[in-house]
């Protein structure tokens, strides 16, 4: 069967090229910025920040662990915001953006679990500790957001999938504080001692290093988000092109 190009195919394509909002910062500049920032953060973490008095060298993983955790939260909140935009304003890009934000959040969440486990192993000799509430919270969120992918890929692409995904993403931001509260409550039941990780010695180079790592991870995550978004849009454009030519 020979492919027949419909006369309006060109019009369709030109229209589809405009799908997806234009971003203010171009992607190459963003990638370069995140490279510089991540390199700077690595240099500061390994060569400038002083060793922790109690925990020594292993404490340095916190510069990444905490930054990644906060960035993952930012991803989940951004996803919920996009989901809200989808439901209220019917923003045509919001569904894909919400999905990509959750995808990045889940990847970062896996990294949080990994870095937290490494630290727990070195510091306490166990790969997993239920008393480490940030880790437990991330496990709950990780399970929750993994189910998001099950839900999304169990539906046909279309308005219903966008709606259900958006509603589920909104549930996520309600679950984050509720789970946090719940995990704090279990500590009162089984483990009354609360570890204060950030003692009063949080100043000078430690603070600078932490802030740079935080910004570096945020920018890096945003770069990844933009890369994935661009890829997904390209993918859907190719699919449209194939449909037009079929």
């Amino acid at each position, binding site marked *: 069967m020979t492919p027949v190009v419909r006369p309006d195919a060109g019009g369709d394509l030109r229209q589809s090229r405009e799908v997806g909002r234009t971003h203010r910062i171009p992607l190459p500049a963003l990638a370069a910025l995140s490279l510089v920032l991540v390199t700077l953060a690595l240099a500061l973490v390994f060569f400038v920040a002083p060793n922790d008095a109690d925990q020594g060298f292993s404490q340095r993983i916190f510069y990444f662990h905490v930054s990644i955790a906060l960035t993952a939260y930012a991803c989940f909140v951004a996803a919920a915001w996009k989901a809200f935009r989808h*439901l209220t304003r019917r923003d045509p890009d919001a569904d894909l953006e919400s999905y990509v934000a959750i995808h990045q959040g889940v990847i970062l969440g896996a990294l949080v679990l990994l870095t937290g486990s490494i630290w727990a192993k070195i510091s306490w000799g166990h790969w997993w500790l239920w008393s480490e509430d940030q880790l437990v919270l991330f496990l*709950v*969120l990780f*399970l*929750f957001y993994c*189910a998001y992918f*099950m*839900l999304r890929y*169990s*539906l046909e692409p*279309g*308005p*219903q999938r966008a*709606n*259900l995904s*958006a*509603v*589920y993403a*909104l*549930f996520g931001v*309600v*679950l984050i504080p*509720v*789970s946090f*509260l*719940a*995990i704090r*409550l*279990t500590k*009162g*039941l089984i483990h009354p001692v609360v570890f204060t990780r950030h003692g009063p010695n949080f100043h000078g180079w430690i603070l600078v290093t932490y802030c740079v790592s935080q910004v570096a991870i945020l920018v890096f995550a945003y770069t990844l988000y933009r890369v994935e978004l661009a890829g997904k849009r390209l993918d859907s454009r190719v699919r449209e092109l194939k449909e037009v030519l079929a």
Partner: protein
Amino acid sequence: MSYVRDVGALARKDLLLELRARDTLPAMLLFVVATFVVFHFALPGSPSRLAASGLLWVSILFTALLGLGRAFVPEREQRVLDGLVLAPCDRSAIWLGKSVATLAFLVAAEAVALPVFALFFHPLNGATVLGVALADLGICAVGTFLGAMAVATRARELLLPLLFLPLAIPIVVGGVGASAAGSPGRYLGFLALYDLLFALVCWASFEYVVTE
């Protein structure tokens, strides 16, 4: 007022259906008692109070899942949901009516399960019963909502536990705390907060689950 009437009519429909077909409730009853027996052999000897209250909460959760998995099956088989969406009532009434009906099934199942639990394991205190009552509200509100989502997917019943269990972890924390801690007040408060928050979210967003 007409909202309450709509919810009542929808819940009555489900209860009537159950009364005639007797699909769900006997299955839930049998399941919860069988789970207790399984747990007795899984935790040999006499389990501690903490372990026993844990297994009570696991049994309640899975029994509820059994009922919730069935909740939207008649709607799907008879294509009732399309009709309900077209009906001149608020869409959230569909969710609330279904939640009330599942709550009735769950409470009926627990009316048997809790005395059986007290007979087999440990006697129950008032805080546990209150905790179960508060948890039931949250389980039915969130579970029904997710049931409506799951029934729209290809995976159907397979998806419901995956969606529901992470959201039910705070319920288990509150419930176990209410039955095991010395001062259950704040756990009960937490359960009430959970119910309120998620009921609000479900009520506000159910429209988007059933419409496009």
